[in-house]
């Protein structure tokens, strides 16, 4: 496979890709520092550095370690998780429109959150811990349902069937949500709408700890599968011809995608757009080879989420704009610009 003529990357290309990865990491570090500085309490770059190494005042370190840092880390993890999940899904379904949404993950998580808010909660305090758990259950259950419905005994899962089933199940769930919406009172509706628009609302270290293992294990696993994904994206016939056990690999990759996006959506709400746009941006930067596409997607997703979350936090102080909205407002025009500039 390494020597297949399609994928022989010249050493120049490889070098270029590494340089791009380096630049992306640099940008993330810059965004990270700016994000640490900005907020309701302004801290200068030097103060941030001092505080990071333990020389700040008590107040400064509380702001940094208890409020800003967990949130920044979560948004980066979520961005990476969703973008890689989208990258995998676009690769195996060979459909440019695929994102974690087609697995019904956003819809399933949204429905659980909506059910919980509309029937049980009166206070908002307890829900901060329960909502991500419920969202993860909803996301997992929906993905399992879609998988079961799309599975056929002798043929396994075909990408087209998976997409169509996903669309149908998501449509069914959102219609249930329409009916539920009309029963909500305005305050509860506002809560649900904010969640659906996507916001990093419960930011503390326990969330970071619950999200981290998924990302740290699954993204390297996806990168390990990069060669298989290169082959799969050539189409089923070619892939089979090249000797890839497509059905088995597809199931593994799907499971990775579900794990990544389910865990991400649980803490971030309905931010599907990162999963759609991240891989496309990455593809325009480093090309279609998954060895580079997956890490670049992860970095692009992290950067986009980090910048968006910072902007959403700062721009309308003291209130916040849901991150999902900022992601679309920042990401879509840039994506359109790239699209208009690109050659067919």
């Amino acid at each position, binding site marked *: 496979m390494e020597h297949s003529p399609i994928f022989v990357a010249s050493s120049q290309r490889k070098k270029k890709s590494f340089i791009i990865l380096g630049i992306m990491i640099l940008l993330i570090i810059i965004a990270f520092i700016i994000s640490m500085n900005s907020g309701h309490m302004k801290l200068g770059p030097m103060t941030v550095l001092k505080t990071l190494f333990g020389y700040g005042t008590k107040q400064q370190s509380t702001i940094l370690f208890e409020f800003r840092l967990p949130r920044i880390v979560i948004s980066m993890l979520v961005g990476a998780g969703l973008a890689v999940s989208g990258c995998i899904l676009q690769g195996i379904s*060979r*459909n*440019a*429109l695929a994102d974690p949404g*087609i697995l019904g993950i956003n819809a399933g998580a949204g429905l659980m959150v909506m059910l919980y808010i509309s029937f049980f909660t009166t206070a908002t305090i307890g829900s901060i811990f329960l909502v991500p758990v419920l969202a993860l259950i909803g996301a997992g259950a929906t993905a399992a349902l879609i998988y079961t*419905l*799309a599975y*056929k005994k002798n043929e396994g899962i*075909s990408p*087209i*069937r998976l*997409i*169509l*089933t996903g*669309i*149908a*199940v998501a*449509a*069914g769930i*959102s*219609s*249930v949500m*329409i009916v539920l*919406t009309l029963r*909500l009172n*305005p305050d509860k*509706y*506002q809560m649900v*709408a*904010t969640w659906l*628009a996507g916001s990093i609302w419960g930011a503390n270290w326990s969330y970071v700890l619950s999200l981290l293992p998924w990302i740290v294990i699954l993204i390297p696993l996806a990168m390990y599968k990069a060669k298989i994904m290169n082959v799969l*994206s*050539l*189409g089923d*016939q070619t892939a089979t011809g090249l000797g890839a056990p497509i059905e088995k690999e597809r199931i593994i990759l799907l499971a990775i995608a579900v794990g990544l996006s389910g865990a991400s959506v649980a803490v971030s709400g309905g931010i599907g*757009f990162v999963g*759609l*746009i991240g891989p*496309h941006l990455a*593809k325009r930067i480093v090309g*279609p080879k998954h060895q580079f596409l997956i890490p670049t997607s992860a970095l692009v997703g992290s950067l986009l989420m980090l910048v968006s979350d910072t902007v959403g936090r700062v721009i309308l102080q003291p209130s916040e*704009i*849901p991150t*999902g*909205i*900022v*992601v*679309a*407002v920042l*990401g*879509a*025009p840039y*994506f*359109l610009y790239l*699209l*208009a*500039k*690109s*050659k*067919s």
Partner: protein
Amino acid sequence: MAAIQESNNMITTSPVKLRTRPITATLILIGGLAALLLSMAVSVSFGAAKIPLSLVWEAIFQFNPNITEHNIIQELRLPRVIGGAMIGASFAVAGAIMQGMTRNPMADSGLLGINAGSGFVIALCFAFFPGLSFSMLIIYSFIGAAMGAIIVFGVGSLAVGGLTPIRLVLAGAAVSALLIALSQGIALYFRIGLDLAYFYAGGVAGTKWSQLKIMLPWVVGALITAMILSRSISLLSLGEDIAAGLGQRTKLVKFVGIVVVLILAGSAVSVVGSVGFIGLIIPHLTRYLVGVDYKWIIPCSAILGSLLVVLADLCARMINPPYETPIGALIAIIGVPFFLYLARKERREL
């Protein structure tokens, strides 16, 4: 890249002769039309006040303004039922054209930015001009739909190499995401989300003759154009290279196709909001039934789409009278199991 691979794949796998079923298609056209007329009649006679079919007949052909039932039928039920049928046909045909042109099974009229554009302008209206009348809202909604489509079309064709299907799809997804995010932001900031939800859940209930009069000529014209275009769309659905190789002026066809979709989906969205699922499932269903020739897919989609919306609207009124269940939810409840069944059976790509 993906597009190129896909089209290569299509060339090798697409059968030499298009698989069509003209007889099934004719049966659907005739049977579907009969079922549509019947369900429209039933829909007119059912409701909060039950009106026998004979009275319905009288109300239409011997209208007497002094009889209450005649007024109910003429002013409330008839426009609603006709509007429902028109909307169903519009969404379904728009979806069929989009799927044929972009060769993407996930495509529907929403991809042109129509639904998102309309939703964005409606959100603006609710936020800044809260007292606007329904008929004004519809005009603004159409303006929004056109705006969304122009942005998508413009960005898609700006690029070197022109408007390829993959580019149209991506531009549509990005513009839609942007406009939806902006509407969400407005809705959250002005706290008008619930009002918007009520507005969209209303379905075809508020349809007036005046709206239908504006819509009808456009929709009929667009449907006829779609029929004329059907042959070209069949060719385009084989892949752009093949269509061009067979001597088709693909740019012209795509442009006209997009204008048709804009008119159909734009006017439908302005009346019921985005019930996008119709445009997605009906073309799939039709393709499953009648084969891959758009000469049959387009008229059959129109009939089946009308039937679905009229039936859904009827159910919406019967489930929990005098309250109405949101029509979008009902369409999903009727459509989803069916679509799942199709997804299991269907093996072709497009």
